[in-house]
């Protein structure tokens, strides 16, 4: 069988434990996994009373993609996050005063530059890595970002 092994579950628990998540639902083929943190509100978002979404088979809005699993910060409110490829100082624009590379609402392609990370005067441009719409800017301009830290969130198109 192709489902999760015990050590997978172990890893998932650890990961979730260290994240800001309150809840995880995972469906893989015939496997379904749900986790909810102590004190977290009961799972209302997906298919409950006020949700206008079609309660069909969940389109897995809250399920992180495999790539996000190993990132230090995983998706929390839908969409995918673009992680910092290296540690350094994050800049949203090419130079002070210039327009930011991206704003919330912008459409990006895989190759769109979304920011710059400076390490010892070396500038490294960061690309979106996927096409979609920018829904949130997560990292602060001019601040240190760790390797793997979420920079922006994209709703994939």
């Amino acid at each position, binding site marked *: 069988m192709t489902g999760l092994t015990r050590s997978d579950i172990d890893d998932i628990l650890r990961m979730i434990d260290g994240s800001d998540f309150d809840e995880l639902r995972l469906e893989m083929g015939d496997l379904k996994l749900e986790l909810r943190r102590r004190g977290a509100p009961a799972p209302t978002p997906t298919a409950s009373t006020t949700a206008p979404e079609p309660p069909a088979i969940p389109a897995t809005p809250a399920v992180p993609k495999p790539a996000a699993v190993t990132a230090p910060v995983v998706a929390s409110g839908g969409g995918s996050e673009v992680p910092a490829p290296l540690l350094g100082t994050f800049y949203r624009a090419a130079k002070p005063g210039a327009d930011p590379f991206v704003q919330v609402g912008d459409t990006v392609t895989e190759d769109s530059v979304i920011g710059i990370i400076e390490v010892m005067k070396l500038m490294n441009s960061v690309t979106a890595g996927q096409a979609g719409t920018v829904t949130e800017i997560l990292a602060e301009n001019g601040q240190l970002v*760790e*390797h793997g830290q979420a920079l922006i969130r994209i709703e994939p198109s």
Partner: protein
Amino acid sequence: MAPIRRIFIANRGEIAVRIIRTARALGIETVLGVSEADRDSLGAQLATRAVCLGPAPSAQSYLKVGTVIEAALGTGCDAIHPGYGFLSENKALAEACATNNLTFIGPTPANLEAVGDKLTARTHAGNAGVPLVPGGEAETAEDAATLADEVGFPMLIKAVAGGGGKGMKRVDRAEDLAAQLDLATSEAAAAFGDGRVYLERYVTVGRHVEVQIISDGETVIHAGERDCSVQRRYQKVVEEAPAPHLTPKLRQGLLDAAVKFARHIGYRSLGTVEFLVDVEREEFYFLEMNARIQVEHPVTEAITGLDLIALQISIAEGAPLPLTQEDISLGGHAIECRLNAEDPARDFMPSPGRVAQAWFPSLPGLRVDTHMTPGAMIPPFYDSMVAKLITHGETRAEAIERMQAALKVCALDGIATNAPLHAAILSDDAFRQGGVDTNYLPGLLARISE
């Protein structure tokens, strides 16, 4: 220089935890730079903050000077402690600290230059009047052959930029010289990015004795010697202080030579001068100087009562040494066993994995420096040393007895370790008698495997 308030620790494992221990005692904050594999390590949990430097391989995280500097600056640190290994003796890091207004908790860039290149260090030792093993540089097989004629076999090839046994080759016969030289050169190039090697006479019966130096740049003192002769493939396995059965004259000669060398190069910080000691002839030879805190520093702390990391920080802050040579008094005997995640039954294959149990209770005279906790993960990317057991006793026999108790009582389960090897060494007559040389452990291993 101003007092240090927040230290960036550019290291991992037990030494990161050790540095945090002293920083907490001193009220100094710590930021630990970790690789992805070390995010959940004990050090990351204990540091005031941890930041991820990059992926698991050291070359992409722990060894990146620019990233370390950027991380230290971005987290508001005013100093960097490099631990041992990794960037600890990297001149570029020390220089980058200087240009970025960070205090490097270690020696000056000039010190690192003086001892980082082993040939340069040899030259300084010669100028300082410290005895050297006959030998020299060899760029080509011809150079080597000429040198061999002068010095005689067996010879030892060593990496100029080296350390930790990498690039080291023993050559017993002239016909093997060229091939071993090639091997050593490429190993050195792979390990240090510097393929230069040199040759020395191989002293067949020798002990590895080293002297702990403490210097503020003005006052140079020593904190006694350590004997690290119990080695396997040039890796220290058991260390102790003081070195057993040295005559007062020989011991004083070693201590004086170490201080003389450190003074000659204007050394500032903690450092260790290593010697090869020919006990029968009462002679010794300079090997190298390690310009950093040493793995085995706890045995010196045990017999002196000093906190070497605290001294290292205080020196880096620019404070004059708070003690003189007369203030250093040695008491009792201390032994350190390096517990490695490796399997003695499988030729010491590394055994990374998840630790099921890690329990090191307080036993009389026992100190344990470790980053192991129940459930800790030992990643496969780094050194296999997972804990150091250090026992202190009034006599060497008591230190040994306490170590034997510690090995019986402590638990580190879920992975294979070399604890059985330590138990074998501690109960072996030759070791118990004291004063074994560097051939001892290979011999013991051969006897055990028979």
